């Protein structure tokens, strides 16, 4: 990682979070009033991916670990849920804990191996684990294999079909996103987050200070994997479909870009970045079927012209106005 990235969980993070949450909370109300029902499902999808981006930001932004296999956890959560639904055991009380357990376990086992490596090797080894999950999904011939699996329906809650209601499902997703955002913001300010951040900037110094850097990183990795698994649970229920594509490495690339747009290390920025990314994708794909021809160069320009995302640009402008003061 080049240069220090300031962690903006201080003063500036309160109001953006409030505005973001209020805005998202009002989407269904506005959509129903203006009879734009598809907004609800579109925004649900966006929030699910925002949740995944948020989980990546915990290890990438605060931990400084560039994981290139993060989509695997979404895939694991989604497949666990999908398979349980197909086997008639899709109740939320079973599917949700199972999804979290499976993705958490995968994060634990792969984390033990991956976190002993550094830099490029870490990128490559997480990519390898991600690909393993992808091909494992492809090998699940009984559950659709390559083509994916269309589910019979959504998870029930105590046997009730609550989640089939779009609005209910929207607010469930919203609650998950807001809950995880608050949880991670608190954690990042607590000792756990400080140690993680310290290890990003100087792992040896943190070791010398007596912290078990490996253990803290592993905890962060498992937590991050479980939150992405939660996103997988929601995604399977939302689309009523699971496919190996959920775990593809291109998806991991998308997630990284979402985190970057918002500014690495800024948790609300990850959510904002994901929403920006998906809105852009939605807008461009409405414009032309070849939207990636526009989108690709936008990514390149973005990387070449900005350092550290929108958040970084804002911070630099602010610093310049304040007479080059750095915090």
């Amino acid at each position, binding site marked *: *990682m*080049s*240069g220090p990235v300031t962690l903006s969980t201080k003063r500036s993070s309160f109001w953006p979070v409030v505005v973001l949450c209020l805005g998202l909370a009002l989407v269904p109300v506005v959509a129903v009033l203006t009879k734009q029902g598809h907004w609800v499902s579109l925004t649900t999808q966006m929030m699910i991916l925002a949740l995944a981006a948020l989980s990546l930001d915990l290890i990438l932004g605060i931990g400084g670990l*560039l994981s*290139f296999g993060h989509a695997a956890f979404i895939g694991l959560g989604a497949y666990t849920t999908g398979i349980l639904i197909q086997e008639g055991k899709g109740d939320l009380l079973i599917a949700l804990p199972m999804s979290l357990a499976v993705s958490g376990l995968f994060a634990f086992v792969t984390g033990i*191996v991956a976190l*002993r*490596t550094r*830099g*490029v*090797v870490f*990128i*490559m*080894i997480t*990519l*390898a*684990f991600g*690909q*393993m999950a992808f*091909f*494992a*999904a*492809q*090998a*699940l*011939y*009984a559950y659709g*294999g*390559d083509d994916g699996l269309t589910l019979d329906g959504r998870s029930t809650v105590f046997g009730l079909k609550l989640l089939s209601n779009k609005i209910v499902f929207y607010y469930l997703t919203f609650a998950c996103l807001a809950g995880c955002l608050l949880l991670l913001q608190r954690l990042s300010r607590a000792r756990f987050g400080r140690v993680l951040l310290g290890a990003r900037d100087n792992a040896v110094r943190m070791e010398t200070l007596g912290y078990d850097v490996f253990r803290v990183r592993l905890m962060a990795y498992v937590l991050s994997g479980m939150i992405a698994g939660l996103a997988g649970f929601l995604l399977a229920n939302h689309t009523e479909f699971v496919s190996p594509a959920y775990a593809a*490495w*291109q998806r991991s*690339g998308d997630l*990284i*870009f979402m985190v*970057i747009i918002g500014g*690495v290390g800024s948790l609300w920025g990850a959510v904002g970045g994901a929403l920006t990314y998906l809105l852009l994708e939605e807008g461009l794909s409405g414009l032309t079927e*070849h*939207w*990636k*021809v526009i*989108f*690709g*160069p*936008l*990514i*390149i320009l*973005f*990387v*070449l012209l900005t350092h550290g995302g929108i958040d970084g640009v804002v911070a630099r402008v602010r610093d310049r106005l304040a007479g080059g003061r750095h915090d």
Partner: protein
Amino acid sequence: MSLLAIQVLNGLQLGLLMFLVAAGLTLVFGVMDFINLAHGVQYMMGAYLAATFIGWTGHFVIGLGMALIGIMVFGLLLERVMFRHLYARSHLDQVLATFGLILFLNQGVKMVWGAAPLGVPVPEWFQGSVLLGDGILYPVYRFVIIGSGLLMALVLWLVVEKTRLGMLVRAGASNATMLSALGVDVRKLFMVIFAFGTMLAGFAGAMAAPILSVEPGMGDQVLILAFVVIVIGGIGSIRGAFAGALLVGLIDTLARSYSVDFMRLFVGPAAARGIANGLSSMFIYLLMALVLFLRPDGLFPSRGRT
């Protein structure tokens, strides 16, 4: 036995194609410390250019030559416009920018040539098969791929080990800053390496065109496999790329064919094929994770690299 022979030849052929892609990637990565995800689309561009030029001229060798020149120009252009600005950036920036380039080129190819796969005919002289005894036939063209792959490997080895340019490349792979301090124009060296790497990837794509379908996104899977190869072999090491590519090619092919047979004991043929595809691919990544864990620098790390 004869099945094994054919699978070993197939594995060798896949391995040598992988080597051509991985050789360029490992040099770019090793010397410039630049993660180029777009290396796979250069393979794809090679295949498309070959398909187009061979179609125009109606002649395989002339078309191939034109495609190689085309892909080299294309590589130099990319280096000039985009990659040059990324060398000093973080890996994160490099991954992202080249990821954007993949999106652009995969879609751009679809716009220009259409989404349907293109076919390239096997050149006339290389049609037909060779009898390998016991009535086993093996296509001549696949031998041509094996032969040209070995030839390229030999040329590359001679250049890297025996010439002054190769010496600079090796020096760059172990310490580019020091090389620059000694008065070598590293920028120019980067450009040469880059153009050469692109050409190798394009050559692999062009050679593979008659036996694979030429389609958008064909480079993505190859790219990921090439990363596996160079990580197993050791970043920046041509020898490592060669060993890694053959290892990956053989394991992938053999694991695929034998796991199909193995799964057939339990499930139907279609299911066995589906499951075996997934399992054998997982096997490669398991190998990679194992190597990285036990020897983070790969099997043949380039000397002096820290």
